């Protein structure tokens, strides 16, 4: 094994590009994802899923399936009636929360809804048997279009007499007055299309029940093992202190595993029922159909402006497609969307009205960014369109409306307090780095020569480090336990549950600095509820700012304890102790080695009166506010107006996520985020036809970005520490996704502005771009979208 370069240095570890501690096992394929575990006597579960989007379930015949050799059982809703429903954690005054049984009961409401569970000794046999299950469906009218769903379409839930799932309004300032006094009102309708998160590891669940010990162990590819433990104990009626959830290596999440799914109730129920371990692996087809989707909003925006470009007010009416059922956080996501509609601008009056709509589709829920990309798309598209209508430069328009650095902490019209920012600095840096002035000159020259170059600007702020518990449905704190073992090695137990973010490395860096040791001497343990104190999980760009802070503060408690013991042993006051690399010293030169001190805390033969033996501390960190990372992205494109093809020439991102623990990991998060955001702008789209069939439900049809689709991104940083936590960190997991989608659409629409194209709906496939050009060309008023 080659040296990872993480030991023996005397430098400060925080801020350094350290190679990841996770990687040796991952690059050798010797790590363990859920599907890599095999238990003795393990059975395999395959789910029979509805091919209909909306139908009455008349009969399920399982005899033929049961008769197949190797089949252990076939189970339907009558069998699983005792299993509690799939939970929704959100409460709102008028929220309708339909019953969501783990297996369809009476009706199916989306293609892919689980109808029966087949269990066999072999996965191939289980699949054969699933095909032998006969289900009689009586199709019902299908509701796909959100606007029709609210206007005369049949009801998905007869008892509600409506397809409206909830309403939500955020209003502040005198909006009507703002629009009355406006010199100009810019209006635009925009669709934020439905997306598939597509973690490369599909979901997987394995369960084992030991009746003697009464212990249920559930392995799941999840972002939230502790919350899952609580929910599963409720679903199955088991005492929570006998339920253990393990999130082993998790192959990406992007929000799709920030949930509690039907399979997480079905599989452990089967294991208990059958007395044998049971495993279920999601196929990619199932992943498209029955893992949560993201986005899917229709947005009507109006921006009130003075003719000098000053923003007076913003009004938005949003429809959120919830799908047929609520998953864990479905109705929460659009509330985040509403909150972030102030963007990084001074907006004196705002009104955002959101209506949640039931349709015969899979549920929407948190997908990378979760509400903020939707808001930022609306805001940044409106800023681009407004600047263009006013004849102002896109950058100049933004600079005019940013709050100044000295105004922070800045309270927005939506009621948030942005912690710290220098919006001007990040934008100016991006302008310089992209060669903005020369790009604009080339654009003007190009238009004369029939070349269509576009420059997209996107300045964003996002709400991260989720978050203060008062603003979250299930607690927004995080736990950290630091234990120095008797031999001096350190174990960190973190409630954050990473799945690619590299927290085993970054958390080790920050603890190593505090204790004067090497990151390689810190083992970061996560994802096992029996080992780790209760925690919340990794999502919402929260792990470092909340979970890292919990670890940091637990370490501070330990340092105080170490100083007390060292003072006792060295005959001085705790305040006179300093922690150096590998030793603690008193004023005047006496010192004790780190190892001797720790061991003496365990042998406990010579400790001060009242001193608790051992060397372990836990901190549950409750953040006082969110953090608000920000930045400026600039994309340069060329559009071929004959074919509608878009060439991405350059992508520059200047991001500010506060202090940086490991710049390599931060850059990696940004790369991946930008690629996902560009994916939405350019290629990705879940398309349901009017019968509710998912037309883009395979990796052949759903255009996930491939390596050769993307340019090399140019990254730079500004650093504005957050005052919300002692490390000054903010979060970076979602920034790229949030900024890049509007950046790309702004660039393409900017290129085509002389042709009268004002807006094109995503994804900007050549056919869409070409059609927009053609329509604008044919219409005397220009773009038909205006």
């Amino acid at each position, binding site marked *: 094994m080659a040296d990872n370069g993480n030991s023996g240095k005397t430098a400060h570890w925080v801020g350094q590009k350290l190679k990841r501690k996770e990687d040796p096992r*991952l690059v*050798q394929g010797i790590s363990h994802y859920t599907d890599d575990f095999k238990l003795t006597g393990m059975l395999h579960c395959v789910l029979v899923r509805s091919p209909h989007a909306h139908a009455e379930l008349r009969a399920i015949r399982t005899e033929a399936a049961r008769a197949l050799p190797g089949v252990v059982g076939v189970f339907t809703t009558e069998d699983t009636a005792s299993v509690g429903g799939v939970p929704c954690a959100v409460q709102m005054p008028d929220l309708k929360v339909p019953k969501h049984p783990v297996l369809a009961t009476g009706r199916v409401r989306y293609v892919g809804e689980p109808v029966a569970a087949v269990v066999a000794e072999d996965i191939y046999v289980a699949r054969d048997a699933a095909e032998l299950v006969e289900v009689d469906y009586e199709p019902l009218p299908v509701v796909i279009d959100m606007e029709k769903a609210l206007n005369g379409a049949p009801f998905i839930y007869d008892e509600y007499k409506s397809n409206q799932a909830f309403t939500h309004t955020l209003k502040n300032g005198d909006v009507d007055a703002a629009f009355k006094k406006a010199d100009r009102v810019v209006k635009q309708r925009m669709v934020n299309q439905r997306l598939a998160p597509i*973690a490369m590891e599909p979901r997987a669940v394995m369960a084992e029940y030991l009746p003697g010990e009464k212990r249920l162990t559930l392995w799941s590819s999840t972002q939230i093992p502790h919350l899952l433990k609580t929910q599963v104990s409720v679903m199955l009626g088991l005492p929570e202190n006998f339920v253990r959830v393990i999130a082993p290596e998790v192959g*990406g999440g992007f929000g799709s595993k920030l949930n509690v799914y039907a399979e997480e109730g079905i599989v452990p129920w089967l294991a208990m029922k059958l007395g044998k371990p049971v495993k279920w692996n999601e196929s990619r087809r199932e992943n498209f159909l029955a893992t949560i989707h993201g986005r899917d909003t229709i947005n009507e925006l109006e921006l009130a402006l003075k003719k000098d470009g000053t923003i007076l007010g913003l009004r938005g009416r949003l429809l959120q497609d919830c799908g047929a059922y609520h998953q864990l956080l479905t109705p929460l996501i659009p509330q985040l969307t509403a909150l972030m509609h102030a963007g990084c601008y001074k907006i004196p009056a705002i009104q955002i009205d959101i209506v949640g709509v039931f349709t015969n589709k899979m549920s929407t829920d948190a997908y990378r960014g979760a509400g903020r990309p939707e808001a930022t798309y609306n805001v940044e598209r409106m800023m681009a369109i407004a600047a263009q209508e006013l004849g102002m430069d896109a950058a100049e328009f933004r600079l005019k409306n940013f709050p100044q650095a000295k105004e922070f902490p800045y309270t927005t019209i939506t009621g948030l307090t942005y912690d710290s920012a220098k919006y001007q600095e990040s934008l100016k840096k991006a302008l310089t780095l992209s060669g903005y002035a020369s790009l604009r000159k080339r654009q003007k020259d190009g238009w004369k020569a029939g070349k269509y170059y576009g420059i997209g600007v996107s300045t964003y702020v996002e709400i991260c480090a989720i978050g203060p518990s008062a603003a979250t449905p299930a607690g927004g704190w995080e736990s950290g336990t630091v234990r120095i073992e008797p031999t001096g090695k350190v174990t960190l137990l973190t409630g954050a549950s990473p799945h690619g973010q590299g927290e085993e490395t970054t958390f080790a860096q920050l603890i190593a600095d505090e204790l004067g040791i090497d990151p390689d001497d810190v083992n970061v343990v996560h994802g096992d509820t029996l080992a780790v104190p209760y925690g919340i999980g990794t999502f919402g760009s929260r792990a470092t700012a909340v979970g890292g802070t919990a670890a940091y503060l637990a370490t501070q408690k330990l340092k105080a304890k170490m100083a007390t013991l060292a003072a006792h042993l060295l005959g001085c006051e705790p305040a006179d102790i300093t922690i150096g690399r590998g030793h603690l010293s008193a004023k005047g030169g006496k010192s004790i080695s780190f190892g001797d001190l720790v061991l003496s805390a365990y042998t406990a033969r010579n400790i001060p009166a009242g001193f608790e033996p051992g060397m372990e501390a836990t901190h549950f960190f409750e953040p006082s506010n969110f953090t608000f990372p920000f930045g400026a992205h600039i994309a340069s494109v060329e559009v071929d107006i004959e074919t509608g093809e878009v060439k991405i020439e350059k992508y520059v991102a200047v991001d500010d996520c506060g202090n940086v623990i490991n710049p390599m990991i931060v850059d990696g998060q940004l790369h991946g985020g930008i690629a996902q955001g560009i994916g939405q702008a350019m290629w990705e789209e879940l398309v349901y036809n009017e019968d509710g069939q998912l037309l883009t439900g395979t990796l*052949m049809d759903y255009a996930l970005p491939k390596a050769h689709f993307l340019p090399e991104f140019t990254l730079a940083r500004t650093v504005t520490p957050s005052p919300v936590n002692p490390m000054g960190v903010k979060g970076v997991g979602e920034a790229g996704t949030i900024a890049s989608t509007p950046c790309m659409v702004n660039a393409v629409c900017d290129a085509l502005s002389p042709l009268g194209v004002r807006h094109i709906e995503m994804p900007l496939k050549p056919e869409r771009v070409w059609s927009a050009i053609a329509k604008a060309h044919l219409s005397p008023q220009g773009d038909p979208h205006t």
Partner: protein
Amino acid sequence: MKKNITITVNGTEHRTFVEPRLLLVHFLRDVLSLTGTHVGCETSLCGACTVLLDGRAVKSCTVLAVQANGHKVTTVEGLAADGLHPIQEGFWEEHGLQCGFCTPGMILCSHDLLARHANPSDAEIREAINGNLCRCTGYQNIVAAVRNASKRMSKPVAARAGVR
């Protein structure tokens, strides 16, 4: 009716009886417990299951185990005789992975490329790995990792770590 097959995996010969429909990826994972080869789509579209069949990259979710009868298979576990292969070093050095699920397939696909083309350009790397999907990295550091590996492999010392 089970078929008798002989497959050499990572230098070790395995003689066994398998169902004709058993996929190579399931043979590797379930019969041989080599779980470094991942299943991401079962339709040859994501590349997570990429292995080397007689030195060339194939997607083992669409190869039957019986089709590999008499052939040599290299999985990620068998890439390096000792320690890390230069491509694995490259991925580690350049942060060419995050969740790690696509990584074994990416590494073996890169192996196929570098065996044919010792010094590819970035564009050639992007073209070569376009059958392997990654949702975490945006590919930029994967390209850097392959570039890094190409440099490592051009050094004589690295050449010792070969495919078994």
